[in-house]
C-alpha cells in the first residue's frame, strides 16, 4: 500500500504549523510516502522551500494551498498543471489584495471563478450537517470528478462514527473519500513546540490555553502502513491519495521565467539592441578609438550574453539606470554581472573593468544556468522615484517587490517561549537580554547561572530547548528593501501578491532565496545615502566652485587623497569611517584604487573569520615571503598576494583546489547564505577539506579557506562589489580633501547616514579648515548651505523644526517681502508660523542677527503665544507696530556659557560656541584626566585617564566581544578598547554613559593609539551640572542632583546631550 499526505500545514501558516516545509518533505521521504503536499492557509509562501527540500530528498511535492473561505468550508486546492497553478496564484492574490496585510478574504464564488484545472479536497466541518451535505452535492456537480472529501482519524474518540458518516455522505454525493492526517508537524516530538506556538498565537500561557491546544500529539506524518491500519475500513480512501497525487503533475520547475519585452524596441532582437547600446556607450567611455583589448573584452562578453540569452536582463537594468540618469539621480550598479565591460559601457557602473582586470566569466558561466545578478544603488532620498517608474512601466500586475521572511531570532524566541511556559517576567527578560543578546545564538549553562537562574531547572531547560527549535521559524512576511521581480506575463500567475504594510506597495509571497532557487530574475533597487551625499556635493561644487563633476570624471589617483586616508582621516568617508576601517587604513596604507578595493573587502567577516587579514598585511609590508600554495592558486590569488580576500576567490579555491564543480561551489555559498544551516554544511566542509588535502594543500590553509566561506555566507563581498564601493570611497575622500565645507554640507544634508553625528562632521570640517556659521533665521535655509566658502548650518539641524516651516520662513524672507526679519514679531507676522515653531528657533539660538539671545527671544515669543489680539488680522494691514500695551523691560538673568553649550546640544546636537569638555576641564584636571591630544606624546604602556563625549560604541561581530568606544573632548577623539571582562563589570557605564572617563594603558600600533580600558567612570552627571554651574566640579556626591530635584521621577531628566550610536 502506498500513501501520499495531502493535508500539511507548515510553519508558513504562521503560528499554526510546527515544522519547516523542508523538514516535512524530508521526513515524508524518509517514511516512504509516495508524495507530500504543502497546503498552507491561503498561502504559497512555503512551497519553494518544500520544493527544494523535496527535490533533495527525492520525493514528489504537490503544490497546493488550504483555502479558508469566509462563507464555506475549507478546501485543499491542488493545481493539476501550470495554468491551474497560475489561477490558484491569482485567486490568492485576489483574496490578499482585498484584505489588510497578512490576511486573505476569499469566498466560494471566488474559488468558482478560478476552479479550472484544480483538484479540490473538501474539509468537513466539526459537525457535518444537512447544509454541508447540500453543499457537497452542489460542489460535486460543479467540479465533477475533481473533488474529494477528506476524512481524518485523529484519535478524538468518535473517529469511527465520524468516518462512517463522512463515508455515507461521500457515497450519497458521489464525492470520493480521501484520507489525510491533517499534519501540523513532521514528528510527534514537535508537540511541545506546537503547543507553544498555539499559546503565542492566542496570547496566553500553556496553563491558560485549555482547549486551544490539541488533546494529543497525533498530527504528525505517518507512513502508509499506519494510515492503512487507521483507515482499515476505507482502503480506497488511502489509495485515492496516490491517485490524486498522480493527477497533479505540476512542479515549480515549470515556472519558466520570461523576461519582460518592453526594453527591446520593435524590429530588433534583444541581443542586437544590447550590442547597439554597448558600442554607443563604448565610444562615449573610451572615445572613438577603442583599444583592442577592450574591443575583445566586449565582443567576448556580448558573445557569452548572447549564448545565454541574458540580453533582455541587461536591457532591463539599463532602462532603469537610463531613467535615473535622465532624472539626475545618481546610481551605481554592483553584483556579479555588474563589473562587466558591457555594464561599464551601458553606464550601469562607473568602474572600468579593463583597469581592474575583473573576469566577467567568473560570474556568468555557461555551466551555471542561472540569471546574472546586478544590484543598483540609488540616492536614498530619490529611490522611490525609480520604484514608481518601474511600477508605472511594467504595471503592478507584472512588477512586485520580493518579500523578506522575518524569522524568530534567538531573542524573540526565548521571550515568546518563556511567556508561554509561564516563566516570570524577570526570568524571561533576563534570559532574553543577557543570555541571548547581541546576536549570539547560543545559550550556555554558565551564562544562565550568572543571571541567577538554574540551568538545571526543567522549565528553564525546556524554555531554552524550545526557543532553539523556534529560532528560525518564519513569523511574518515583510517587504524586502529593494528586490524587484518583473515578469513578461502576469506576476500574479507566478506567485501570489499581497499588500505590504506601506501604502501603495505590494509584495510577493517569496523571498530572494526562493526566487534564486527557482532561477527567477530579480533586480535589487537599493538606496545608498552616500550617493545622495555625493550628488549634493557635486551640485554644490558646480554652484560655488564652477566645476562640473560626475562619478566617472572625478580626477583619479590623487595622491593627496590617499595621504589623507593613510592618516585614517576618514570621518564621513564612505565605508572606511568605521573604527575597524580606521584602524586598518594606516596599516594597509592604500596608494591606489585597487588598494581601496582591498581595503573595502578586507574588513569583512569573511577574511577576518578566515584569519586572512594579518597574513595579507605581513606580505604587503614585505615581512612575509610571497608564495602560493600551488600554481593553480597563483592564478586565483595573484592579485591579492596569495591570500584569498574576495568571495569569488574562495569559491575558485573550492573549484581549483578542492575539486568542486562550479555548481557545487555555488551551492556551497548558497547553503551558507540562505536557508538554515541544515546538515548539508558538514558534507561540504568534509568535501572541501579532504579535497584540498588530497591535492596536497595544507590542512590548516584548507580549514581557513572554509572558515572564510562561512564568513562570506551572509556578508559576501565579491570583488565587483568591493570595486563599486571603492569608487565611492575614493570620490567621497576626494571631496572631503578638496572641498571640506562642501563635503560636510552635503553630509549634513543627507542625514541620517553614516557613523557620525552632526557634531563630529562639523568638528571635522572645522579641523580641515572650513569655517562654520551658526543657524540663523536671516541666513539659514532648510538645508545647510555654502556662504562665501563657509558652511552655514541649516534649519534642518534644529530638532523638531519642520521642513514646511523652514520653507515658509525662507520664502517670506525674500526682498519682495521686505528682506531680512527684524525680530520675533516681524517674523511671526510675516510668516504666520506657530509660536511653537518660533520657540524652537529660539532654542537653537537662531535669533542672533536680530540682536536677541535665546532667552530674550523666548521671552518675546512667549508673549506672542497669548491670543490676546484677535484683531490682529486687521492690524496686519498697518505697518509693523508694537503691541498695544508696551510693557516694561524685564531683565532676564544671563545664561552662563555652560548652559548655552548644553542648550545648543539639546537643540542642534552640536555647539559652535564651545565644547562641553573645555568647560569641564578644570574639574577634569583635578581628577588627573588628560586631554586626548596628549595621548600623542605619551609612550606606549603608560597609564592614563581620558574623558570625552561618547560618540560611537561598536562591537564588531568579528572582534570576539571586544567593544570599541570613540570619545571626543575639546581637542581630539580618543579610542577606547574595552575587553569583555572589563565590559562585564562596567556594563551600564559602557552602555549608557554620555560622558565617559576611561583609565587604562596606552597602546600604540603605528599611528593608531588607543587606551585599553581597565576602569570606566560615568561622568554624565557633570554634563547636567554644566547647565547651572559654569565651574562644575566632578567628585561631588552624585546624590546632589537627586536631592535637588527632591523627586525620584526627576532622577533621570531628559538628556540634553544625545546618546551615541551603539553597536552598528
Amino acid at each position: 500500500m502506498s500513501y501520499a499526505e495531502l493535508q500539511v500545514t507548515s510553519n508558513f501558516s504562521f503560528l499554526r504549523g510546527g515544522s519547516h516545509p523542508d523538514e516535512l518533505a524530508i521526513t515524508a521521504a524518509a517514511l516512504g510516502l509516495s508524495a507530500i503536499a504543502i497546503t498552507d492557509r491561503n498561502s504559497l509562501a512555503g512551497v519553494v522551500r518544500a520544493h527544494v527540500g523535496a527535490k533533495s530528498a527525492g520525493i514528489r511535492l504537490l503544490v497546493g494551498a488550504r483555502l479558508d473561505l469566509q462563507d464555506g468550508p475549507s478546501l485543499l486546492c491542488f493545481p493539476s498543471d501550470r495554468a491551474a497553478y497560475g489561477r490558484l496564484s491569482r485567486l490568492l492574490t485576489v483574496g490578499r489584495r482585498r484584505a489588510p496585510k497578512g490576511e486573505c478574504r476569499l469566498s466560494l464564488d471566488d474559488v468558482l471563478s478560478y476552479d479550472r484545472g484544480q483538484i479540490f479536497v473538501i474539509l468537513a466541518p466539526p459537525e457535518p450537517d444537512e447544509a454541508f451535505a447540500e453543499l457537497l452535492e452542489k460542489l460535486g456537480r460543479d467540479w465533477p470528478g475533481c473533488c474529494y472529501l477528506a476524512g481524518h482519524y485523529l484519535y478524538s474518540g468518535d473517529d469511527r462514527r465520524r468516518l462512517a458518516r463522512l463515508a455515507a455522505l461521500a457515497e450519497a454525493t458521489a464525492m470520493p473519500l480521501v484520507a489525510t492526517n491533517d499534519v501540523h508537524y513532521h514528528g510527534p516530538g514537535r508537540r511541545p513546540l506546537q503547543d507553544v506556538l498555539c499559546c503565542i498565537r492566542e496570547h496566553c500561557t500553556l496553563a491558560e490555553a485549555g482547549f486551544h491546544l490539541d488533546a494529543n500529539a497525533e498530527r504528525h506524518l505517518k507512513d502508509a502502513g499506519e494510515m492503512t491500519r487507521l483507515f482499515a475500513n476505507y482502503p480506497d480512501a488511502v489509495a485515492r491519495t496516490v491517485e490524486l497525487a498522480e493527477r497533479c503533475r505540476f512542479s515549480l520547475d515549470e515556472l519558466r521565467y520570461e523576461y519582460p519585452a518592453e526594453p527591446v524596441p520593435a524590429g530588433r532582437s534583444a541581443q542586437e539592441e544590447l550590442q547597439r547600446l554597448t558600442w554607443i556607450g563604448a565610444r562615449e567611455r573610451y572615445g572613438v578609438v577603442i583599444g583592442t583589448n577592450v574591443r575583445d573584452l566586449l565582443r567576448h562578453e556580448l558573445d557569452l550574453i548572447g549564448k545565454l540569452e541574458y540580453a533582455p536582463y541587461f536591457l532591463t537594468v539599463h532602462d532603469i539606470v537610463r531613467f535615473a540618469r535622465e532624472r539626475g539621480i545618481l546610481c551605481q550598479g554592483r553584483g556579479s554581472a555588474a563589473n562587466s565591460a558591457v555594464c561599464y559601457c551601458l553606464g550601469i557602473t562607473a568602474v572600468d573593468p579593463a583597469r581592474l582586470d575583473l573576469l566577467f566569466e567568473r560570474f556568468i558561466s555557461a555551466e551555471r544556468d542561472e540569471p546574472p545578478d546586478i544590484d543598483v544603488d540609488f540616492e536614498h532620498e530619490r529611490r522611490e522615484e525609480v520604484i514608481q517608474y518601474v511600477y508605472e512601466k511594467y504595471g503592478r500586475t507584472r512588477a512586485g517587490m520580493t518579500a523578506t521572511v522575518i524569522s524568530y531570532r534567538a531573542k524573540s524566541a526565548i521571550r515568546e517561549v518563556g511567556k508561554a511556559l509561564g516563566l516570570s517576567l524577570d526570568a524571561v527578560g533576563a534570559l532574553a537580554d543577557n543570555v541571548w543578546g547581541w546576536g549570539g545564538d547560543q545559550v550556555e549553562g554558565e551564562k544562565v547561572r550568572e543571571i541567577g537562574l538554574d540551568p538545571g531547572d526543567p522549565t528553564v531547560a525546556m524554555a531554552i530547548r524550545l526557543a532553539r527549535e523556534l529560532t528560525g521559524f518564519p513569523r511574518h512576511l515583510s517587504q524586502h528593501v529593494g528586490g524587484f521581480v518583473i515578469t513578461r506575463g502576469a506576476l500574479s500567475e507566478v506567485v501570489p501578491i499581497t499588500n505590504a504594510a506601506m501604502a501603495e506597495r505590494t509584495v510577493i509571497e517569496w523571498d530572494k532565496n526562493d526566487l534564486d532557487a527557482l532561477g527567477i530574475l530579480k533586480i535589487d533597487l537599493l538606496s545608498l545615502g552616500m550617493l545622495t551625499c555625493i550628488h549634493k556635493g557635486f551640485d554644490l561644487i558646480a554652484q560655488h566652485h564652477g566645476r562640473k563633476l560626475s562619478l566617472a570624471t572625478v580626477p583619479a589617483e590623487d595622491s593627496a587623497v590617499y595621504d589623507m586616508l593613510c592618516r585614517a582621516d576618514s570621518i564621513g568617508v564612505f565605508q572606511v569611517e568605521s573604527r575597524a576601517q580606521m584602524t586598518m587604513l594606516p596599516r594597509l596604507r592604500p596608494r591606489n584604487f585597487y588598494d581601496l578595493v582591498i581595503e573595502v573587502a578586507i574588513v569583512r567577516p569573511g577574511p577576518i573569520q578566515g584569519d586572512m587579514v594579518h597574513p595579507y598585511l605581513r606580505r604587503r609590508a614585505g615581512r612575509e615571503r610571497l608564495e602560493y600554495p600551488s600554481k593553480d592558486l597563483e592564478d586565483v590569488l595573484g592579485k591579492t598576494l596569495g591570500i584569498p580576500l574576495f568571495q569569488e576567490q574562495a569559491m575558485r579555491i573550492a573549484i581549483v583546489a578542492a575539486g568542486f564543480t562550479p555548481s557545487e561551489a555555488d551551492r556551497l555559498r548558497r547553503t551558507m547564505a540562505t536557508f538554515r544551516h541544515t546538515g548539508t554544511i558538514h558534507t561540504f566542509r568534509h568535501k572541501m577539506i579532504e579535497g584540498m588535502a588530497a591535492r596536497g594543500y595544507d590542512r590548516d590553509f584548507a580549514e581557513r579557506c572554509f572558515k572564510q566561506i562561512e564568513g562570506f555566507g551572509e556578508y559576501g563581498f565579491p570583488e565587483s562589489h568591493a570595486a563599486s564601493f571603492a569608487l565611492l570611497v575614493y570620490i567621497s575622500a576626494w571631496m572631503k580633501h578638496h572641498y571640506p565645507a562642501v563635503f560636510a554640507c552635503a553630509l549634513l544634508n543627507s542625514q541620517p547616514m553614516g557613523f557620525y553625528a552632526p557634531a563630529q562632521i562639523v568638528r571635522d570640517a572645522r579641523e580641515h579648515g572650513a569655517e562654520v556659521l551658526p543657524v540663523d533665521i536671516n541666513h539659514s535655509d532648510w538645508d545647510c548651505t555654502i556662504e562665501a566658502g563657509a558652511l552655514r548650518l541649516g534649519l534642518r539641524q534644529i530638532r523638531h523644526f519642520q521642513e514646511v516651516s523652514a520653507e515658509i520662513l525662507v520664502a517670506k524672507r525674500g526682498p519682495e517681502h521686505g528682506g531680512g526679519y527684524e525680530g520675533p514679531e516681524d517674523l511671526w507676522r510675516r510668516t504666520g508660523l506657530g509660536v511653537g515653531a518660533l520657540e524652537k528657533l529660539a532654542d537653537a539660538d537662531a535669533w542672533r542677527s536680530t540682536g536677541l539671545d535665546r532667552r530674550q527671544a523666548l521671552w518675546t515669543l512667549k508673549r506672542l503665544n497669548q491670543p490676546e489680539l484677535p484683531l490682529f488680522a486687521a492690524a496686519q494691514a498697518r505697518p509693523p507696530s508694537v503691541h498695544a500695551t508696551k510693557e516694561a523691560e524685564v531683565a532676564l538673568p544671563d545664561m552662563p556659557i555652560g548652559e548655552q553649550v548644553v542648550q545648543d546640544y539639546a537643540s542642534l546636537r552640536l555647539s559652535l560656541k564651545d565644547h562641553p569638555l573645555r568647560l569641564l576641564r578644570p574639574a577634569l584636571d583635578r581628577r588627573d584626566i588628560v586631554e586626548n591630544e596628549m595621548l600623542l606624546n605619551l609612550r606606549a604602556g603608560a597609564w592614563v585617564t581620558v574623558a570625552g563625549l561618547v560618540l560611537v560604541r561598536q562591537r564588531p561581530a568579528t572582534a570576539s566581544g571586544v567593544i570599541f568606544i570613540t570619545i571626543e573632548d575639546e581637542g581630539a577623539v580618543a579610542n577606547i578598547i574595552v575587553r569583555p571582562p572589563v565590559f562585564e563589570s562596567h556594563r551600564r557605564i559602557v552602555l549608557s554613559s554620555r560622558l565617559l572617563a576611561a583609565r587604562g594603558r596606552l597602546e600604540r600600533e603605528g599611528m593608531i593609539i588607543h587606551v585599553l580600558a581597565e576602569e570606566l567612570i560615568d561622568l554624565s552627571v557633570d554634563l547636567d551640572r554644566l547647565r547651572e554651574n559654569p565651574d562644575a566640579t566632578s567628585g561631588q556626591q552624585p546624590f546632589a542632583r537627586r536631592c535637588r530635584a527632591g523627586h525620584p521621577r526627576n532622577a533621570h531628566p531628559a538628556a540634553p546631550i544625545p546618546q551615541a550610536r551603539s553597536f552598528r
Partner: protein
Amino acid sequence: MENQENQNGRRILYLWLPYWPTDRLWRAQQAGRSTPTAELDKSLALALIAARQGGQRVAAVNMAAAEAGIGMGMMLTDARALLPELAVYPMAPEEDARALAGLADWCGRYSPWVSLDGDGAHDSGGQHGICLDVTGCAHLFGGEDAMLADLVRRMHGFAIQARLAIANSLGAAWAVARYGGQGTAIVPANETRAALKRLPVAALRLSPGAADALARLGLGRIGELYALPRGALTARFGREVTYRLDQALAKLSEPLLPRPACTSFWSRLAFAEPIGHRDHIARAAGQLINDLCTVLEREERGARRIELRLYLADGTVQRIKAGLNRASREPAHLLRLLAEHLPSLEAGFGADLMLLMVGQSNPLPAGQRTLDNGETGGIEELAPLLDRLGNRLGAANVARFVPVQSHLPEQAARLAPPLTRAVGEWRHVARRPVYLLPRPELVEAVAEVPDGPPVMFRWRGIAHRVQRGDGPERIAPEWWHDMQAGAARLAGETRDYYRIEDSRGQRYWLYRQGLYDDAMARIPDWYLHGFFA
C-alpha cells in the same frame, strides 16, 4: 465645627509618599496578604515595572534602587544592566490606589477633611500624596509639632516613607513637602514667601511645559517670579503661573476635594490604650451613637447612612456601614444596625481611635417608625437557603461544578461556591461519563493491539464481556506540568479512552495508559475511570 471659610487661618498638611508603590508592596508582603515568590528585603533595590512605549519600563522604585541610579521611565533592560540584582515586580496601580485610599481613611484620625492628591490612580511612583485640612485640629494633639511628630512616628512604624509639610495653603505644603528637601516642615503662616523662594518653579504644580519654559528663561526658582510684573507673566503663560503662585501664597483659596465619606456630622473617640475586645468596642460604639444622635437632634436631622470606623494600631481601618430606608436618630436602632456587624470585625491589634460619621442625612420627618429591610427576589431567595445549608453541612460542602479548560477528564471541572457564576463551556459532554471515579481503578483487560477496544475486562474481581466499544480518544498528558519528564515517559502517560458496553448493557469508560510501541517493553495498564448512564 471649625470655621472653614477663614482662609488666613487655614492649615494644610501635605503628606507625600515618594515610594508608595514599593512601600505598599513591602507592607503587603509583610502582612502576608499577597503571595510573592520571595520575601522582599527592604534594603534591596526594588523596581516596579509596567509596559510602556517600547517595552517594560520602570514605573516605581524604592529608595535603595533610586540611590543606585534606577530612575523612572528607564527601560527594564537598562535598569538590569545597571543593577543586575534588582528585584522586579509588576506595577499594580489599582492596588496602590486602593491602599492609598485606605491610608487616607486612616488619616481621618487627624482630620475629617482628607483628600487624595490627584485622582489617586497613579500608574507610576513618586506621585502619591494625601492632603489633610488640619485647620483647628492640631490642638487635639497638642499643637502642630506634636501632630506632625505623631504622624511621622506612625508612618515610620508602618514602614511607609513619607515627607510632610504643614503650611497655610495646599500649594505651599505640597511644594515644601516635595521639594523642600526635609522630612518634615512646618511653615508658619507669615513665612510662606520665604519658604518657597528657593524652590524650583516645578514646585508650583505647573504643567511641564510652563515649568520648562520658565527654566529656559532663567526663571527657575519661585523667588525669581516674585519680582516680575504680573502682567508680563500673564501675557506669556496665561493665568497658569500667577494662579498657581497665588494658590501657593494663599492669596487664592483652594478647596480640598473631600473624600466621599466626608461629613458634617461625626463623633470621635480616642483611646489611650488600643481596645480590641468586642464588648469594649460595642460600648464605645454606643457612646459614639449617643454623641452623634445628640448632634443630629440639635440639627433636626436623621441619618440615612452611617459608618463606623475603627483605626487600628497596624495602620488599617475597619469599617461598618449601615443604610437606613428611612432617616433615623434613634440610638437603639442605630446601635442594633451596627451591632449586627460587630462580630465580623477583625480588630486584631486593637483600635486606638473610633469615628462615627453620617454619610447621608435627611431632615427628620415626623412620625418615623419601623425600619425594615425586606425586599428579596430571584437568586436572593436562594441565598438564605444556601447559607443555612452551608451552616449546617459546612460551607465547603455546598458547591457546584464549573468547567475548566483541560483535556484531562479529572481536571476538566472543579468545585466552586454554589453561587459562582460559571464561565466557559462544557466540552465533550456527549463523550464523557456521568460519573467519574475519584481515582481510576486498575482493571485487567484483553484488547487488540495496538489500539483496539478491549474485548473483555475484569474489575473488582468480576469479568465483563464487552459487547460494544468505541474509541480510542487519545489524551496526552499536559507535559508542561512536568517538564523534566522525557518524551518516552510522556508517551507512556498518554491515555486511550474507550466507551464500553458490556453484555449486561452497562456502560463503562476505560482507558489504557501508555501506547503500544515497538520500543515499549512494558505492557500498558488498563483502568476504569467512569460510568455512563
